[in-house]
């Protein structure tokens, strides 16, 4: 007997003989319908429909499958985790949200609840921020995957009624020179993925007229089969215009592009490992991008917002209509009645279940009180955007879907949002790495040049220039600084005409440390994001977390996730920087293996007056160069070790009370105008930071390593120069401000380590005053720019 019964209706609709299926059949159904549900979940559905005494339809099963997917429901972060030290009830509640709840700052207006986190800004305006992952689609179709990643996160911002003002993107690729012969079957070459992803991101942001202002690109062997694509967006929102208060009777309005077969089962696909067959099977899961449609959509939505005509809004992303309608109804305490045949289609012959879960792009869902409907429709029409009423909210807390007059689904909203709680197991096994041993080189110029040209450090100018980072005319500190296009630590935007207050955007990511210990990797990413923000004068920082991990059903991957979350709590709390939003992408495993744990931390800070912003290029010969923060022998995972073929063992830690104090002192010194230039120390340590400051400002620097505050055991010049210890800055100070600056640094490790010089050379003297680096700015710049051009 078949498990599926074709129903007698003039379109495609199947019932599934679920109530009587055995375990094997349940899993078969899950697989055949691509539901991505496990046995326990299938049994819960079976029980529910047995109780109802009827078979579910394909529309119902697909709706449940989407709503319960890892992508939509974040099972791993919400479920129980059994560890060696007891059970953790929800990683999200125990670590990520906890830091925010305990800090509970009054400027956090809405955290974790909505499509984006919302924080206070200025003049009655709030900021909305969100960072998304779009790894899986980008692995299959790099251009479309990345473009729709940007489109999706922009809609997240629109989904809280905010107007997008800037995008960020952080990307991870396999080495571009990866040998073709070593490429596993079904995996695309990193070069192909690299160029596709970059044009996808540029295409969407540029076409929509949203500047891409901050980001990073990392290369790692584990990214060969698992590309990392993080797309972020930030928006402004007049606080009094925010409304999420849909009532029964309100009209469900579907606006934007038409619905097609693109993006079917995107969320199921995102919640599974990639295989060599992914290309064939999952190509329909990747959507097609049309940024101009979204540009028009944005205009209309902002109009509706400003006239306060809507009662709620959300974007259509993962899960399509099924997630958008379900989640909005649940949050509003309503039910929903949907007439699916009203949905405008790209082509005929699409089955109801496909319409309901399609992830076609550039669509949003609005709830509109009946009396405002006509006016709202006019707003969309004047922007040439389709807007179609497809149903209404109802009192009865049910999801009722009909198609051409036939009932095709009827599910209790409560059931939809109460999936069985999953349980994962974590077993931590500390890797047994060793510190490498090699003699100290006498001369380090070659090493400096080599590290400047290494893919993770080298200039990404050739990529950044393909993104419009100036559109809207609000970018006060650009990603590329000055004539020589040095790497800014953060971007600063001035979004309001009547205020000098600026938004500071920065990020931190240290995937290489994650190979040694994901705890300190997470701590370092947080420190780096905050450090970058601080360097330009940012403060009152909110964080966003984005996890890209392997299969959480495997105990070792789960344990690294637990450790990273533990650090998130400790250091977000310690720095007093609450998390406001986040997103996880799990199951990043491919024929080439699991991804190295990759946590992106995005920091959103403020600067009271953008005119006080500090850039990273040295300004004037004769000025003093200070280092702030203590240097430790922490070279595990460093670019220096990597350049010699080592990973190492001792990775940078974060000494939280010192670290917090350093950040605060730097901000105070910025405010008092003591700092001419500030640059953070990260990949490549002191060597890279000092080089970048010099060749961007076009002045030389002489630097004395013997003056660098460091742990007593540190004697080797190469270690002092290349250690990647956290919470450190290089600062340029005018001689006349020496005293003021030193007074402000009271209580933190700091020291004068050099001077800006007219001679266009970087000259570094070792602890015994011997010359260890001597290079011209031209050489340094050439090494840094040579890898990717620019």
């Amino acid at each position, binding site marked *: 007997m078949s498990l599926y019964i074709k129903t007698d209706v003039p379109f495609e609709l199947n019932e599934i003989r679920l109530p009587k299926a055995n375990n094997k059949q349940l899993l078969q159904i899950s697989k055949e319908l691509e539901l991505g549900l496990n046995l326990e979940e299938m049994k819960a559905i079976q029980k529910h429909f047995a109780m109802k005494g009827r078979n579910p339809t394909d529309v119902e099963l697909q709706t449940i499958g989407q709503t319960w997917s890892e992508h939509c429901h974040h099972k791993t972060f919400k479920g129980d985790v059994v560890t060696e030290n007891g059970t953790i009830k929800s990683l999200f509640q125990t670590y990520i949200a906890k830091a925010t709840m305990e800090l509970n700052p009054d400027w956090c207006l809405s955290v974790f609840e909505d499509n984006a986190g919302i924080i206070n800004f200025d003049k009655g305006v709030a900021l909305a921020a969100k960072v998304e992952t779009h790894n899986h689609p980008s692995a299959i179709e790099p251009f479309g995957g990345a473009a729709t990643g940007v489109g999706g996160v922009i809609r997240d911002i629109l989904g809280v009624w905010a107007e997008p003002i800037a995008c960020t993107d952080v990307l991870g690729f396999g080495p571009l020179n990866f040998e073709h012969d070593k490429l596993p079957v079904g995996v695309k070459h990193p070069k192909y993925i690299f160029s596709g992803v970059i044009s996808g991101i540029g295409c969407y942001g540029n076409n929509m007229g949203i500047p891409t202002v901050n980001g990073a690109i990392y290369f790692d062997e584990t990214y060969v089969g698992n590309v990392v694509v993080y797309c972020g967006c930030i928006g402004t929102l007049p606080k009094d215009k925010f409304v999420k208060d849909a009532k029964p009777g309100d009209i469900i309005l579907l606006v934007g592009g038409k619905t097609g077969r693109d993006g079917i089962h995107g969320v199921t696909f995102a919640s599974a490992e990639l295989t060599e067959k992914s290309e064939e099977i999952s190509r329909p899961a990747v959507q097609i991008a*049309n940024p*101009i449609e979204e540009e028009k959509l944005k205009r209309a939505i902002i109009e509706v917002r400003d006239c306060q005509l809507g009662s709620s809004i959300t974007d259509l992303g993962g899960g399509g209509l099924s997630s958008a309608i379900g989640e909005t109804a649940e949050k509003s305490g309503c039910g929903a009645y949907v007439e699916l045949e009203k949905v405008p289609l790209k082509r005929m012959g699409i089955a109801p279940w496909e319409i309901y879960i399609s992830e076609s792009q550039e669509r949003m869902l609005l709830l509109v009180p009946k009396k405002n409907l006509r006016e709202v429709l006019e707003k969309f029409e*004047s922007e040439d955007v389709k807007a179609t009423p497809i149903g209404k909210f109802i009192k009865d807390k049910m999801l009722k879907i009909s198609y051409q007059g036939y009932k095709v689904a009827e599910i209790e909203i409560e059931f939809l949002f109460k999936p069985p709680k999953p349980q994962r197991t974590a077993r931590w096994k500390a890797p047994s790495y060793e510190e490498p041993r090699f003699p100290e080189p006498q001369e380090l110029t070659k090493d400096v040049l080599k590290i400047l040209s290494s893919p993770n450090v080298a200039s990404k100018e050739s990529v950044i220039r393909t993104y*419009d980072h*100036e559109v809207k005319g609000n970018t006060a500190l650009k990603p590329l600084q000055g*004539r020589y296009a040095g790497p800014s630590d953060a971007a600063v935007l001035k979004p309001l005409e009547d205020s000098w207050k600026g938004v500071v955007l920065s990020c931190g990511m240290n995937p290489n440390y994650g190979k040694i210990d994901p705890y300190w990797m997470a701590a370092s990413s947080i420190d780096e994001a905050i450090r970058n923000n601080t360097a330009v004068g940012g403060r009152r920082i909110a964080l966003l977390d984005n996890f890209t991990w392997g299969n959480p059903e495997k105990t070792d991957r789960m344990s690294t996730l637990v450790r990273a979350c533990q650090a998130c709590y400790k250091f977000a709390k310690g720095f007093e920087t609450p998390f406001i939003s986040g997103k996880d992408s799990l199951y990043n495993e491919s024929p080439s293996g699991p991804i190295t744990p990759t946590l992106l931390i995005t920091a959103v800070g403020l600067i009271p007056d*953008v005119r006080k912003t500090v850039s990273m290029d040295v300004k004037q010969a004769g000025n003093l160069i200070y280092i702030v923060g203590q240097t430790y022998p922490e070279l595990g995972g460093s670019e220096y070790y990597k350049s010699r073929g080592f990973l190492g063992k001792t990775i940078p830690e974060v000494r939280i009370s010192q670290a917090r104090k350093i950040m605060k002192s730097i901000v105070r010194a910025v405010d008092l105008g003591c700092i001419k230039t500030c640059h953070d120390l990260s990949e490549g340590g002191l060597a890279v930071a000092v080089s970048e400051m010099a060749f961007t400002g076009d002045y030389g620097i002489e630097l004395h390593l013997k003056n660098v505050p460091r742990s007593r055991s540190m004697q080797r010049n190469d270690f002092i120069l290349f250690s990647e210890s956290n919470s450190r800055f290089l600062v340029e100070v005018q001689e006349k401000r020496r005293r003021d600056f030193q007074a402000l640094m009271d209580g933190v490790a700091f020291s004068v380590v050099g001077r800006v010089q007219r001679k266009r050379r970087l000259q570094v003297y070792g602890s015994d005053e011997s010359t260890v680096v001597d290079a011209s700015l031209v050489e340094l710049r050439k090494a840094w720019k040579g890898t990717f051009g620019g």
Partner: protein
Amino acid sequence: MKKEDVRICVMRVGGTNCDAETKRAFEDLCVKAEVVHLNQIVNRKNLLSYDALVFPGGFSFGDYVRAGAIWAKGIAAKLGRDLKKFVEQEKPVLGICNGFQVLVEAGLLPGFDRVSEYPQAALATNEPTGYRCKWVHLKHENSGRCIFTQKIPKRQVLRIPIAHAEGRFIFPREQEKEYLQRLLDNDQLVFRYCSQEGEYAGGAYPANPNGAFYDIAGICSVDGTIFGLMPHPERAYYGWQLPDWTRREQVPKYGDGKLIFESMTEYLTKKF
């Protein structure tokens, strides 16, 4: 005409995206600018009630055929007669980036014979190819015809950013020499790409960012009231928008882009 009576139309269509900052630049000069959708102007039939028209940057209709082409055809079809009158009244028309592409596609620039039925020039794909967002230097070449650069001394070097993939100004190969001569004779050449020191780029990247013929970055109409340029003056309006203002002791109040908006405003207040 008094400054406060000036009304500028910043037109937009789907895909236009530099309208807000363009409007802001005018408003900083205390003239009124409205962002208006093409559909609205067509419905209200009120193009002639404005004193100046601006086509801002963006990707009109996605630029899925030649950049600016669809918008240009849309205007010709829907506003042709009004636009002709508008131009005949010597009201200024400014096209920035995508707007410049529109003016060329619409036959308004170079407009050797007023309005040409077919474009007499093109803004072709950049050489080297690809979208590029960067600051460039421009040398002011106009001897006084162009009303948008009256406040800029001839040979002055300006710094303004570009952001486009199709900005290579070209003439039809067989008419290149003739057209260039007409451009020079008519004093229609306005900006040429040059180095920081003011030397012409000579067609070479990076000073010439797109391979434009004769380093042409901006030209005006025969009577000087229509002006199109690839760089974005609205992004170089305030001092804090400059790429290296943090190097200065004092943040400069304005950037070079302001001169263009100022010249245009002054023309309006003096002429009308």
